[in-house]
């Protein structure tokens, strides 16, 4: 019996949703959190003024920005096993995307830290704060305001970049679509449907960005 287009769409909604909930979203969330932590470390290394740390940070950012994400993913997934560290697809993808976010976001965080006026640091020093306390209590809360729009860009790019994980057999939205599209030859329909899933997730994140910006802008004179 011939399956109607509508039936195919209905049959696909759940597997794609599953790909989103079990693949795309956790992959994005984990990679973003680990990536931001790494980015902060790299940004602080670059700002440390200690030559070896600055050098390592610059080298890392250069490699991450100068090589394709898909190649980075392959290097981790296929390369680490041959070096004696076999990894499952999902953790491989989390590592690759975290490193990638770490490289890009470190530049955002560095710029945001530099955007906080020097007088803020000086005022913190005059009430007795050391460098770490000044960073945590005074500089980072203000840098966050500057960093939210560009970091939202990074996050939204990451959502879409996670589709590359389908190339190392992680079952996320795109791979779920491929699995259904293969036997039916309905590539246009399934990939179109996958695109809608990504788009909706990005819309939600854009909305969250607007909220976050409004929240962080509360205390600043317009």
């Amino acid at each position: 019996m011939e399956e109607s287009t509508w039936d195919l769409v209905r049959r696909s909604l759940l597997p794609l949703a599953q790909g989103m909930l079990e693949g795309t979203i956790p992959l994005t969330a984990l990679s973003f959190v680990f990536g931001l932590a790494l980015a902060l470390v790299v940004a602080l290394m670059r700002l440390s003024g200690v030559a070896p740390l600055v050098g390592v940070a610059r080298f890392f950012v250069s490699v991450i920005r100068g090589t394709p994400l898909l190649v980075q993913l392959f290097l981790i997934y296929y390369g680490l096993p041959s070096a004696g560290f076999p990894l499952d697809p999902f953790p491989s993808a989390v590592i690759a995307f975290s490193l990638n976010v770490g490289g890009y976001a470190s530049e955002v965080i560095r710029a945001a830290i530099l955007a906080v006026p020097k007088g803020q640091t000086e005022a913190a020093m005059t009430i007795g704060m050391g460098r770490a306390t000044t960073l945590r209590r005074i500089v980072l809360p203000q840098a966050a305001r500057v960093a939210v729009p560009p970091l939202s860009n990074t996050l939204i790019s990451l959502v879409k970049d996670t589709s590359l994980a389908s190339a190392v057999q992680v079952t996320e939205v795109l791979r779920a679509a491929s699995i259904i599209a293969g036997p039916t030859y309905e590539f246009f329909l399934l990939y179109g449907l996958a695109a809608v899933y990504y788009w909706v997730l990005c819309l939600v994140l854009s909305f969250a960005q607007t909220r976050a910006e409004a929240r962080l802008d509360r205390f600043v004179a317009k």
Partner: protein
Amino acid sequence: MDGNGRVDGNTAEAPLLEVRGLQKSFGDNHVLRGIDLEAPAGSVTVLIGPSGSGKTTVLRSLNALEVPDAGTVRVGDVAVEFGPALSGRALARAGARLRAQSGMVFQSHNLFPHLTVLENVTEGPVVVQRRPREQARTDGLALLERVGLREKADQHPFQLSGGQQQRVGIARALAVRPQIVLFDEPTSALDPELVGEVLAVMKDLAAEGWTMAVVTHEMRFARQVADQVLFLDGGVIVERGTPSAVLEDPREERTRRFLQRLIDPL
């Protein structure tokens, strides 16, 4: 001394603040060429001079926001000898020890925008000095009362006028219970009608016995409040003495010309 930097009665001991042979260059620009000064506890020292004279650099050397190339700074029982031998971690530690002796009020207030007015004042006592939060809160509110801003405690700095912001800056500086309070042109960035409220607070502090070092162009304040006035030009102290001596009967031609320009800029 009651531990708040205030002094009851006269003390005949060493001056609270003592500076010897301060030197500082920014590249080829020799901004401090041997500065000596001292100030007894409870006194008000006013530094005046044209822009580029080094007065702000002197003030910022007292808490090591600017690191002198040579010379010593002593505040209370913390003395630091600057020079090539003092660098890296040792310099950072020495600077921190000096800063623990003082509070500072900036030209552009530098209040923390993400904290409330009260949090700005209690941040140092709570986070740095580890005083109990409730105690710091009570003390903070008392300080805000002191500068007439008790009712602004829960607002954020951007909601305040320039003069109010600067008064919060003063409360924040006092909250860490410094030996000496440094004022770096505290009224220069203010609209003229807001200058008075800030100067009034500073005048009260002087009357209470706080030790203060003030860089300012407010000659009326200097005349009424200062115990000593230092006129700087070209990185040296050209003339020093009581306000009436320096401001009304200056011996040096440079001092006279500077004061003349203040009175009659055209």
